[in-house]
Every structure is written in C-alpha cells, then in structure tokens.
C-alpha cells in the first residue's frame, strides 16, 4: 500500500507535496519521492521517512509518493516517481501491475531502459511508447494494456496537466480555485480544499489548473458531483497528543457519540436473514467476534466469523446468509475480494467501514459507516470501538425488524448504547493506574490476556495491540482453555491480564485466576467488582456497565496498557515496524 499525490496550480509544489505526503505517511513509509516540473522534470526520492527527503527545486506542477514495499526492496532506486527513458514523463503508482513482466520484456525489446525492480516503472515506459506529443492520448492507450490494481498519476514536462486512473486502489480529486489535487486519501489536500470528488474503478481523470474532466477507460466523458467534506484538517492531526494512537484513544467518547448519532438517524435498517457470516481482518476480525456474541444472543441465529484471507478458500456456499464485511479503511484487499466472492455466491452483503465512498462500498448491498473520523495510528483504537457500536446497533435493529425483540426491549438496548461514551470517558480516567501497571510489566517477554464469552475477543484484541506496538509476545486465550495447554507456559511473574465482567463468566473467571496465581503469575484483573481485588495482584476497577457493554470499557484499558508499554520501550507507536495502516495487498 502506498500514498500518492498530484498537484497543479499556483502554489509551491514542493510545499504542497511534502505536506500532503506527510499526511499520507500512514499509508506506508519505507520510502518517499517527488517529481516537479520546472522546464524539465526534477526528481528527488529516498528510502526512509518523508522527513529525510531533501531537495532544492520547485515549481507549480508535481506528483509525490510514499511507499510501502511489495515489489522490490525499500531502496532509493525503487522509490517513486518513475521516469521514462527521456525523463519527460513521470508517474506514481499504488497497487500491483499483474502483467508487468510481460510488458517489461516487450518494452525492453523496443529499447527501453529500466532502472528499478518494481512493477510500477513499466507504466512510465508504456506511456512513453504511446507518446506522440499528447499525454492524454498516450495515457489512455497505456492504461488499456495494464492488468491488476492501480491508482496512477502521470505528468509530462511538455504539458500543464495531470492524468490519473483508478482501478481497485483509492484515488480522490480535490477541487480548488485555479488549482486541483489528486491523492489517495482526503487528508492529503484537506488543508487546501474540502471540495472532493471520489473516483470510481474504471475512471480516468484529466486535471489542469481550471478544470477536472472524467472519462471511462474508453474515453467517454462522465459527469461527477462534488462532495463537501465536513471534517477539518485538525481532525487528522495530533492536537497536542504525543502520538496519534493516544489521541485516537482519547477521542473515543466523542467518536462513539458521533458513530451512534449517525446510526440513530438511519431508517433503512430492515433485515431478514437466517444466518450471518462476518468477514474481516486483524482488529476488525476481533470486532466481528464480539458481533457474533451479540447477534447470537439477541437474534438466536448462528453466526460464523471468518478471516477474509481464509474466506476465499471456502467453497461457494449459498446459505441464505447475510455476509457482513468489516474494514476500517474500506480498502483492505482481502476483505474486498471476500465481498466480491460472497456477492457472486448470491449472498446479501453489508459493509461496516469508516471511510465514506471507499472501495468496499462498491461491492456490497448496504453500508454502515462508523463515522469515527480519520484514524492515523496504525494500531486501530477508536475505529474498533466504533465498529463494536455499529455491530450492537445492527443487531438491535435487525432483531427489531425481524420480530425477535419487542419494541420496548429494542428501545432499552438502544438507550443503553447512549451511555457508552460516558463509560469510555470514565475508563480513560484510569490512565494513571494503567500507566503504573505498564511500568511493572514492560520488561517482560511474554504476556497472556484471558477472558470468557464476549470478552474473549477483547482478550485477543488486547494481545494484538500489545504485539503490534510494543513487539512483546502476547497471547489472548479463552480462560477455560488455559488448562488444555497454555497453562504450561505460566511461570513466575509472567503478566496475566484477566477480564472479569460481572456477568455469567464472573465465577468461572475467578477460578481461572486462581489457576494462574497458584503458579505465581502476576495477575492484573480488569473488573467493575471490588471483590476481584482479593484474587489478583492489581485490580483495575472499570465502570460498571450493562453486561453487553463491558467490551467497550475493557478494550480501552487494554489499548492504554499497550500504549504505555510501547512508550516505555521507546517504540515507534504510530508506525510500528513491518506494518501498514490498511493492507491493500492480499
């Protein structure tokens, strides 16, 4: 996954491109580069973070790229932009060109010289091959030959225009006054304009200072409407917090409130299905697992949860199932592939995503937006709780529309959701205690997170957060499974974080805590019950909630614990090694 940006207008292209790339850094950050037209095309590119990119040239037309390697190791020469042989055409690309080997061989035979190992470089040479003094014409011809997924932005030194094409990778246009932008994501140009046009698959756009035209791949012109984006650039910046992750953890009460209000205004939540299949990756998968408990409890119908990357190996099963796809970015390649497959098998499909107009929304029948605002930290926090909120809401509305819940019961449940922002707010007040616990455990090599029932996925999520940002080995387990193996790994002082909500799992959790304390583990209990303090080394006393809402408070504790642990270890919290925010490769 990569971030790309193109600018044409009157401002300093250097300034615009560097600022925009900074905002796209969450999409990948192993190398970055820019190309700016000033009589000729000047290129600067470098392995590493955007801050390390230094150059002197400037202009008012340029493109930029921030990369997360898929083909070719992170090196200066593999960084974008790429030029053609003569240095007259420059391109940036996000996605994968599947037939690049074949195209590359052909172009080499024609005499083209390649400088990198990437699939992307063929695009520059392909455009050059078709170029007869008209970039637009050459661009159309080149795009027709490409197979795979791509968002491509191209410029030529001879013409003041930008060409852009989209297929399966995101691309949005920012419409300004005497200037226009094209980028992978809206925050890239939100500082300059909030007028946005989202490009769909199979579309090409042509940008000059004063107009943006859209075409399909055959060159037929398309009319598209401008949308106004309401969130401000401050939303996408850290506003005083040391890390985006911490900021996003603290934004949860507000984000959940906005999630809930956008949900409550929906009036199209009528459903009829016999079973549910939930498909997602990573943190969204954990949200899906919590969703399973909620839906089965309220609707009494079976729910299956799949990893998107595994769903594809499932044969086509027509089972009157509603398939729900959960992806924060809406661009997760595995999840999109799964959505296409589910639809092809004849299932009803629903997506839960945070990004309006993202790719997944093109492949499903219905969309629930989590409206949590942009999330920059690679470790998902507020979008996870927003997904839980969306799933709770979905289960209640489905239960009501299918006659499984009385109007009164549904009303009570919906009203209880209104308390979630307050519960989360009160949990954030425990930050000091949680930080102290992080100090006690941050030097340990292994950790266990245990819970039962609907908090079991929260234990998994707590372990994932710990792994991804602190690089400590952490495991989430259903507490009852400990004695079937993992108990052998419990040794003196190993941290065991136990979630003990006051629900049907309470008594059994206490016996599991005794099992691990007996082996001298260091047990941190997360519970609303004071009594749990008698059985654990430290009790983190969370607010008491309705039983179905305990995951909201418990996960916030685990997010903060992972954050403080990673901070004490001096990790790159917002950009953990080897990880990207949204994974657009399969």
């Amino acid at each position, binding site marked *: 996954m990569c971030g790309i940006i193109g600018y044409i207008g009157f401002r300093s292209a250097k300034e615009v491109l560097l600022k925009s790339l900074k905002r796209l850094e969450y999409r990948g950050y192993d190398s970055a580069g820019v190309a700016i037209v000033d009589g000729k095309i000047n290129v600067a590119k470098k392995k590493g973070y955007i801050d390390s990119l230094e150059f002197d040239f400037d202009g008012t037309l340029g493109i930029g790229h921030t990369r997360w390697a898929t083909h070719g190791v992170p090196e200066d020469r593999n960084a974008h932009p790429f030029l053609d042989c003569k240095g007259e055409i420059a391109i940036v690309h996000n996605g994968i060109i599947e037939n690049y080997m074949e195209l590359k061989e052909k172009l080499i035979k024609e005499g083209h010289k390649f400088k990198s190992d990437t699939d992307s470089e063929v695009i520059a040479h392909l455009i050059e091959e078709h170029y007869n003094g008209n970039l637009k014409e050459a661009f159309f011809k080149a795009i027709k030959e490409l197979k795979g997924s791509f968002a491509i932005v191209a410029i030529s030194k001879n013409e003041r225009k930008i060409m852009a094409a989209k297929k399966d990778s995101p691309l949005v246009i920012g419409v300004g006054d005497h200037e226009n932008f094209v980028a992978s994501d809206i925050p890239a140009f939100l500082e300059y304009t909030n007028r946005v046009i989202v490009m769909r698959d199979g579309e090409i756009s042509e940008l000059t200072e004063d107009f943006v035209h859209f075409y399909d791949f055959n060159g037929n012109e398309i009319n598209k409407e401008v949308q106004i984006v309401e969130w401000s650039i401050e939303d996408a910046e850290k506003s005083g917090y040391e890390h985006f992750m911490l900021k996003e953890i603290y934004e949860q009460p507000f984000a959940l409130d906005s999630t809930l209000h956008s949900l409550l205004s929906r009036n199209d939540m009528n459903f009829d299905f016999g079973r549910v299949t939930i498909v997602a990756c990573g943190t969204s998968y954990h949200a899906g697992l919590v969703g399973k408990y909620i839906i089965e409890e309220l609707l009494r119908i079976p729910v299956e949860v799949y990893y998107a990357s595994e769903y594809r190996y499932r044969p086509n099963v027509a089972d009157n199932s509603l398939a729900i796809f959960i992806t924060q970015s809406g661009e997760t390649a595995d999840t999109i592939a799964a959505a296409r497959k589910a639809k092809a098998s004849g299932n009803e499909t629903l997506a839960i995503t945070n990004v309006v107009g993202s790719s997944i929304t093109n492949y499903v029948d219905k969309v629930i937006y989590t409206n949590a605002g942009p999330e920059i930290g690679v470790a998902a926090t507020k979008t996870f709780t927003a997904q839980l909120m969306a799933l709770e809401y979905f289960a209640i509305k489905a239960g009501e529309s299918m006659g499984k819940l009385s109007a*009164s019961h549904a009303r009570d449940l919906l009203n209880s959701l209104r308390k979630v922002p307050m519960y989360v707010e009160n949990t954030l007040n425990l930050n000091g205690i949680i930080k102290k616990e992080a100090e006690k455990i941050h030097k340990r090599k292994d950790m266990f997170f245990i819970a039962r029932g609907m908090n079991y996925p929260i234990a998994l999520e707590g372990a994932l957060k710990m792994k991804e940002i602190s690089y400590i080995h952490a495991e989430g387990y259903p507490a009852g499974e400990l004695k079937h193996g993992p108990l052998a790994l419990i040794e003196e002082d190993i941290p065991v974080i136990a979630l003990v909500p006051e629900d049907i799992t309470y008594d059994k959790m206490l016996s599991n805590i005794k099992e691990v304390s007996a082996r001298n583990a260091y047990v941190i209990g997360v519970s609303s019950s004071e009594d749990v303090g008698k059985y654990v080394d430290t009790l983190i006393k969370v607010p008491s909630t309705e039983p179905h809402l305990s995951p909201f408070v418990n996960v916030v504790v685990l997010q903060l614990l992972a954050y403080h642990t990673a901070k004490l270890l001096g990790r790159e919290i917002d950009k953990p090694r080897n990880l990207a925010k949204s994974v657009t490769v399969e």
Partner: protein
Amino acid sequence: MRAIILAAGEGMRLRPLTTYMPKVMLPVGNKPILEYVVEALRNNSIKEITIVVGYKSDRIKQYFGNGADFGVHIDYVEQRKQLGTAHALYQAKIDGEFLLLFGDNIVGERCVKELLNTKINTIIGAHSNRISAYGIVESVDGNIKIVRSSWDGEAIAFTGMGHFDGEIFGIIEEKMKEGIYNLPEILNDMGIRLKITDCEWKDAIYPWDLIELNSYSLRRNVRKLAGKIEESTIIGNVEIGENSRIGAGTYVHGNVKIGKNCEIGPNSVIIGDTSIGDGVRIGALSYIENSLIMDNVSIGEGSYLKDSVIGRESWLGVKFVGLSGKARKIVEGEIIDVNSGIIIGEGAYIGSSVVIHPGVVVGSNAKIGSLKVLKEDVANEERVV
C-alpha cells in the same frame, strides 16, 4: 381423545393479581391464559375437555360455559381442597387414554400435536433458563425424574403436559393413602418417558413474569385497526378494538393490543409489547411501555408506566409514575431478583402524582393518597395516607 386441564390452583406466588381470579384466568394479550390451552386443543380437534376447577371456579365457568363459544365441549369437576396436582387430576378420574395439561401456561398448537404422537406414560419437557422453578426434569440412573432444584443455565422443565391412561388413577389412589398428593412424586415412581420439544410453551411464576408472558402472547399479534383513530402514528402489529378512540397525536409502536371501548390520548405514547384490556382510559400526554393493563383501568393525564402490570378496575391519578429497574423481592420465602416495573392488584385507588419504585407490589383495593413515593410493598386493602 379427552384432555384434562388442571385449573384449580390459585397461583399464590402471583398475588395480589389472583385476589379475585385464579391464575388460569389472568389475561395476557387480552385473553385468559387458559384460553390459549383450549385453543391449542381445539386446533388439534380435541373437543372433549375436562377442566378441574377449585379456587374462584365461578370465574372460569362464567367465561367458558359449556365450551360452545370456543368450539369445544367442556365438563367441570371440582377440587374442593387444593391438596396437590395429583389430587386435582384424580378428581377427573376416567378409564381410557387422555392428555394432561396445566391450565396456567401458554401452550402452542404444535405442543399438542407432539403430545398426541407420544406413547402412553410420556411427559413433555422443554428448555427453560429460569433461575429457579419447580419441576426440573433430570435423568437419574437412566430413569426420568422430576426434581425441585435451582440450577445454573439451561435445564429441561416439566411442562405439565403428559399422555396417560386410566392406570395412573390407581397409582394416585395408592400414593394418596401415603399422603402424597403431588404429580412429580407419583410420576417419578412410574417409569415415565420424556419427550423434549421446542414448541411454544411458557409459564409465569411470579407477577413480573406476566410481562414476559404477555410479550410472548403478542408475538401472534396482527395489525387490525377498528374504532375511531384520530390523526396518529401507528407502527407495526397493532390491534385496536371496536369503539375505542385514539386521540390525535398519539404514537403507537407494535406489538400492541388495545381492547374495546378504550379512550387513549390525545398525544400519548404506547410502546410494545403492551396489552390494554377493554374499557381502559389513558389520559392525555401519557407514556406506556411494555406493560399489561387489564380491563377498566383508568390512568390519569401525564402518567409514565414501564414494564408493569395493572390489575382490573384500578384507578391511577394524574402524573402517576411507575418506574422500572432492578429490585430484590421475597415471594413465598424465595428471594428473586427482578428487573422490572411495578405490580398493582385489582381495584386499587392511587391519588395524584404518586411515584412507585421498581418491583413494588400494591395490593388489591389498596388506597394510596396523593403525592406519595412508594418504595415498599402495600398489602391488600391497606391505606397509605
């Protein structure tokens, strides 16, 4: 095939709602519980019915008569002393094969169909997740036993349904000599079979259970609007009886059943699952949710009521508030935790601006003065001034 329905008990744990009515005659979805049993039998073409009556038997006889209005033929036998369920059954002694049913549960048509397909000496069990109840079916050394116990999670409950023949009366006769009058003890010695089913079956043990039983009965609700309905919003399965008037600006969200000759609103809100009997008046600007309101109740203007049961002919003043929430109650020596509203018996009179806390029970014919806040139960006939 004959069916014998036991309907002689009071249902003591449902007091004060049973002050003037046996449990089987308590209305849910505006119909006595017993009527659901009779309908399930009739729909399976079982028309010969013996009902064992006892406590307030006139109420039953008056309502069902000889059964002609219900498409069946009903005989009554009287149990003069309520000694136990086996004793009650013995009053209806016959020679041949018969089906046994309890009159105080909601029973679906399919339950009776499944019961008909069993062999003689079989009882029907159903999944139940109540915290405590009488009649858990367990297998003890390979024999089916009905035991009294509390348990954690799901269990099989004895539904009161069984398929027997005249032989059982001989056994009951012997056991009664030993002073055993209850059915479970007798069945436990007989070597009975158990059939577990997921058909429609639901019981109410405590007054607060009636709200859920009412909600359960309303699942069969359909939309049927009679009466005079002024400009109102009516959503979902709502039934409004003849001659009832719904005032302008009223919002009704199903499942809701409103009887005949009612006067509701204007500008009131009724949220399902709610049953409102015949001749009920609900004053303007009131809010009623998930409640069971029996015949001829009057509720004053600006009232609030949630998850509650209001007995027949009670009069509630203006700005009445019945709260819903968690409460711990002791009924017949058993501690139960409820999450519910209030219970008001028959003919209670409650003045203006009274607030009643969750779970509180107000007895039949009690009188509560204005501006009171009630946190404790009030006995039958008690005065609170």
